């Protein structure tokens, strides 16, 4: 599903943030992305989200070289990717329900087709009572759960998550991780960036360990 061959990334004329990355992510796998602050986790996620292109090397996603993708192809590929941002990025003028339904709306699905699914998912992440409020009235943890729900509602083939449990209590953190595992069991490939050691120890998945711009894959 994902293949990196000597991939490098730099911002403008600055130093290389990521150097000679070589790894593969198979369909249906679950990887933790770890590394100290500033090691390039967010930059790697941006590459995987196709919002940046590598400055060197070859990067393939879903069997296609990302350098050769047109903008339309890139957008079509993104419909197979779910993303949970560290800073949530919910739209302030939409309710929780509308934010979560957004990926389905842009795919042209009618409300009657997705309403019950969205409501069910919101109940599951504990936001059933906050369905019709706007993000400004949600706590940090609630926003995080809404962002996760938005990322998974369309059952993406690949889910990227940047510190998805950073703003929730340990109990909910574990529940959310179980949600990711459940999605993984249903076939979704997951790359989850985190620095929570407790989580890494509890869920024994392969790790993409970033340090000094390079990556080390551990089983």
């Amino acid at each position, binding site marked *: 599903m994902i293949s990196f061959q000597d991939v490098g990334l730099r911002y403008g004329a600055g130093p290389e943030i990521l150097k000679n990355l070589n790894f593969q992510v198979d369909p249906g796998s679950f990887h933790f992305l770890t590394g100290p602050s500033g090691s390039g986790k967010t930059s790697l996620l941006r590459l995987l*989200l*196709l*919002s940046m292109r590598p400055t060197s090397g070859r990067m393939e996603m879903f069997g296609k070289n990302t350098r050769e993708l047109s*903008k*339309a192809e*890139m*957008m*079509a*590929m*993104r*419909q*197979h*990717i779910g*993303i949970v941002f560290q800073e949530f*990025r919910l*739209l302030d*003028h*939409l309710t929780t329900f*509308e934010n979560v*339904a*957004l*990926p389905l*709306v*842009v*795919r*042209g699905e*009618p*409300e009657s087709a997705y309403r019950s699914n969205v409501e069910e998912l919101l109940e599951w992440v504990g936001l059933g009572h906050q369905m019709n409020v706007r993000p400004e009235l949600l706590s940090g943890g609630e926003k995080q759960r809404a962002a996760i729900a*938005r990322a998974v509602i369309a059952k993406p083939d690949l889910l990227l998550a940047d510190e998805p449990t950073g703003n929730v209590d340990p109990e909910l953190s574990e529940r959310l991780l179980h949600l990711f595992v459940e999605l993984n069991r249903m076939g979704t490939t997951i790359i989850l960036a985190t620095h929570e050691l407790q989580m890494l120890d509890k869920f024994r998945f392969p790790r993409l360990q970033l340090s000094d711009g390079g990556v080390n894959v551990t089983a």
Partner: protein
Amino acid sequence: MSLLDQLPFFGKKQAFSIVPRQTIAARTLALLVAIMTFLSCVTFGAVYLVQNSTLAWSSEVGREITVQLQPREDEQMLSDIRVAISLAKQTPGVANAFELTLEDSEELLTPWLGEQFDISAFHLPQLVIVQLSDPSEFDLEALETSLKATIDEIGIDTHALWRQQLNAMAGTVVVSGVLALVLILSATALAIIFATGGAMATNREIVDVLHFIGASDSYIASSFQDRFLAIGLQGGLVGGAAAITFFFVASTITNALLPQQSASQVELLFGQFTLGWMGFFGLLAMVAVVAVLTAITSRLTVHRFLAQIAP
């Protein structure tokens, strides 16, 4: 939610609006479109009124000629007038001919010179008005020959010079008005480009999130252009309604509030302020033009914005 917001102008109607409805940028754009529509409508209305009045004047004046007889002793004068009227009536294409008495002249001049003016103190030429049934059939040369053979010191005024000047003046006003209209619409387009650019920059976060969840540029553009068309229509209708109100109030003032004489003077100078059905439809057409201009301009601006930003 207004009725306009519910209209599915382009593409598929969403369950909710992805673009925020009430933002400062949207309100500014609506106000801008309203002002520009008002200016466009008033300019259009003014041009329409001038052109209509000119056509009416020109047509009316073109169906009349004036025979001027120099003042003489009473009996001779009356005889000359009767002869002139008789000869005029015998000429092909003439519907009627009659004397313009001093009282008639006084009445015509009263709006300009006031009621205290005594016209009999002046030795003015006596006028015979010749009304034409069909200007194309009228034989001016024949009338002129027969009149000059019968009456001394006679003059015929076909008002050709006056009509020429009137048409030239009206043409200048119409061309100036059309030019002003083009400039207003150009300024509107430029202002919409800036307002749309501002609105897009304000909503950059929404555009980014939509991109991240896989929305195509055409989907995003469609969402924004629906909103901008609704804003254009709202602003256009407000501006158009204000312009219609303006013409209604102007008409009411000239017809009712001004004294009869002043109203006559204003009407003589500017024609009637009443637009009529054609003028009314013209104003509605201006509203539609501004709304379409808003939609097209904002669509192009949105596409340009999306093409410039990283996906």
